[in-house]
């Protein structure tokens, strides 16, 4: 009986928000969808979904009204350089679930499991306007670097439990300097290993029954890893390839062409040097546009002009944050790309609709369009600016708390200072 009552109470708490109609009125609405920008627009969210966006949209009777006059309204930002939900403190191993060193579970590692919606990193990112993220595995095999793949990324919501939006949105592969180390110390070794692995997966797919009877040749990959790579060789799951050097980018494009797999480039510090080739291959790119130091020999050509040059060549770019605890810096990274020549709209697209499209989520998030999830941020200024902040964040139409553990710490210690 108690258990039933608890269940009803839980439903009762969730129900009003989900069934609610919210009208965000009077703001400058930057939809990032076909409607473009509305100088004064209204966004209606019902039952967690956007039902209408427009300049003259009537407010339904009984709707909860959020007055956004003088504010900027955007879609929730989508973080694509992060492991939100998989890590608390890097130096506390038990709190870091970004990767494993189990060599049986390389490609099969699935970030869609083990997610922690109570992570204290999530409210911090949310206060940066981030409502969704691509929880991306990280190799955990240093210093031996034996694993070929880090595993599969998952799309997650930052609006509490359940976090998982979509499993298996990309397979993580490191090429360049790191990939060379994984393959024994040279780039050529990794490319040979990749072709061999994709050959194994195709062989496995053609001989499943024989595999089950133990009648196939011995594969270098575990059963779990073979299965995990099937959607990749079938072109249903993209490989997210971290790579920086121009020549490595060309190798990645050639590998994808030869193996007929879909790829997304990540990093691409020298991407601007091969921007036309990337664009011709219709390959999207995730970048950190502030990376302009020649931090390694694969980044000798890194420049603040990367975002602009890639975009001008017609490449779809998404801009990443500075990782996990510092994911909120994503919007400033986009602002810096704009300061270095990227058009403002393209900067905002690179943290909203572009990552949604790149990871196959654009039917649900990334823009303010009827039918999409009610993930909306209301800002007190330009969302890419250091001097602006969100004043309200809605995920699935539900108001998110505008607090984090950090703001609670602030509020514990600030009053004593103010009394001085």
């Amino acid at each position: 009986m108690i258990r039933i009552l608890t269940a009803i109470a839980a439903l009762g708490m969730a129900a009003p928000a989900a069934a609610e109609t919210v009208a965000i009125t009077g703001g400058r609405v930057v939809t990032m969808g076909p409607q473009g920008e509305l100088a004064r627009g209204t966004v209606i969210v019902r039952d967690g979904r956007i039902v209408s966006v427009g300049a003259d949209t009537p407010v339904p009777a009984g709707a909860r009204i959020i007055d956004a006059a003088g504010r900027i309204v955007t879609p929730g930002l989508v973080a694509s350089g992060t492991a939100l939900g998989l890590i608390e403190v890097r130096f506390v191993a038990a709190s870091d679930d970004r990767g494993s060193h189990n060599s049986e579970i390389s490609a099969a590692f699935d970030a869609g499991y083990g997610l922690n919606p109570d992570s204290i990193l999530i409210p911090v990112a949310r206060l940066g306007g981030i409502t969704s993220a691509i929880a991306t595995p990280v190799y955990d095999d240093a210093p031996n670097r034996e694993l070929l793949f880090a595993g599969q990324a998952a799309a997650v919501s930052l609006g509490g439990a359940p976090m998982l939006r979509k499993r298996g949105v990309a397979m993580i592969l490191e090429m360049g300097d790191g990939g060379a180390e994984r393959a024994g110390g040279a780039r050529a070794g990794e490319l040979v290993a990749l072709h061999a692995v994709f050959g194994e997966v195709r062989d496995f797919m053609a001989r499943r029954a024989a595999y089950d009877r133990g009648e196939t040749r011995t594969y270098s990959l575990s059963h779990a890893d073979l299965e995990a790579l099937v959607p990749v060789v079938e072109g249903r799951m993209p490989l997210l390839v971290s790579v920086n050097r121009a020549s490595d980018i060309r190798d990645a494009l050639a590998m994808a062409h030869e193996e007929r797999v879909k790829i997304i480039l990540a990093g691409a510090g020298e991407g601007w040097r091969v921007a036309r080739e990337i664009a011709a291959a219709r390959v999207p790119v995730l970048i950190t546009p502030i990376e302009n130091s020649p931090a390694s020999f694969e980044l000798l050509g890194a420049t603040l002009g990367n975002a602009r040059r890639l975009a001008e060549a017609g490449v779809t770019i998404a801009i990443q944050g500075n990782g996990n605890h510092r994911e909120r810096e994503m919007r400033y990274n986009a602002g810096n790309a704009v300061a270095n020549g990227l058009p403002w709209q393209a900067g905002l697209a690179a943290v909203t609709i572009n990552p949604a499209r790149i990871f196959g989520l654009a039917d649900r998030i990334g823009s303010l369009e009827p039918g999409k999830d009610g993930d909306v941020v209301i800002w007190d200024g330009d969302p890419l600016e250091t001097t602006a902040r969100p004043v309200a964040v809605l995920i699935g139409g539900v108001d998110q708390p505008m607090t984090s553990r950090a703001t609670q710490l602030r509020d514990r210690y600030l009053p004593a200072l103010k009394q001085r």
Partner: protein
Amino acid sequence: MRVNFGGRDFRKFAGSAAWVACAAMLLGASYMAVAQDFADGGAFPSTYRPLPQAPLAIVGASILTGTGEEIASGTVLVRDGKIEAVGAALTVPDGYQRIDGHGKWVTPGIIDAHSHLGVYPSPSVPSHEDGNEASAPNTAEVWAEHSVWPQDPKFRLARGGGVTSLLILPGSANLFGGRSVTLKNVPAVTTQAMKFPGAPYGLKIACGENPKRVYGGKGRAPMTRMGNVAGYRKAWIDAADYMRRWEKWEKGGKAGEPPKRDLQLETLAGVLKGEILVQNHCYRADEMAVMIDIAREFGFRITAFHHANEAYKIAPLLAKEGICVATWANSWGAKMESLDGIEENAPMIDAAGGCAIIHSDDGLLIQRLNQEAAIAMTAANHAGMSITRGQAIKWVTANPARAMGIADRTGSLEPGKMADIVLWSADPFSVYAVAEKTWIDGALAWDRADPRYQGPSDFLLGQPGQEFAR
């Protein structure tokens, strides 16, 4: 606090009456009485000389002076590498190069109180890993300037972010990591040619997780925080003993053989004598309080706590002690000791009357310290504090200069100070503002519109991808 002038550096300033007076005061009786110069012994003197320069007038810009003041539309006059005058209604004398600042902003040069440029240069390869002498918990004898690679391409990138001076610290692996060096951010072939003339040395001390992880991980002391503290105290006891031996020899008319020099103890004794400034990597409030107690026990001062994510919890104590706090707005959480970092840390130190600094500790962040200060300022004002731009700019100009012991010469736009100046395309607290021009000692050191100032360092010359500005 006394500033230590090496002989050659002192001569460099001898032409200026103000500097003669200032130096004479600084070279007071107590300094002259002690023959042993614990700070630098005159070794590795600065050979920095300002680049060629002409009288300069920046006219019509919004000016943040670094003293807290904001001038909506003013003029900065520069002559002989020094700030001559700053004001709203100044007449530009004949013969001055005129820079139109209308619609733009002027600030003092950005100063980074915590950098590892040169000691952890790019590319980051093992041959370049020169920032942590992680071979013993106490390496007070090492000097960062002997690791600095002046060809680190990041010096140029930092100029593009308006950085005119930086404190290069050894890393935080050790209880005592060694001496810092203060540099003027000019292109140079030798480190001596970048050394900020007469800047005092600093000693890097590290609290907390790093030393205990580096050495505890090898099964040796320190492996705990109490082990850290025991290591500090033992070293200070040795340093006090060393200093007494020298003083005894000097008071005895320097009869007989002098004590043998010990580079490690010389640095620590320099701290005890107030000649070397303590730059203390320390995150947690409770650990900072312990470090203050150690300083009291041995009679020295801590100049700044660095990183200091929990400084806001003891802001009144730090203000009372006159200890600066060099920290970030955004960085937190990578370690347990940084879990309680908040965006409002620096502003809360400011509100308590303390000395707040935004530092980088990073080769990318150093290029946009103005933005990091903007984030802290914005968060503070959102929380109901009242921080102006004029106040916040001090976090990346005057206050780091103070922590580095060079505030009498740079860090603000005041007559007589070094003409270290940035002309910004817009409000420097905007993400869209870029440093258009940067002057160091009145000489143009960075011009965003002129490729001559954007050339690659020797290392990058002839490497791929240099055809566009970085």
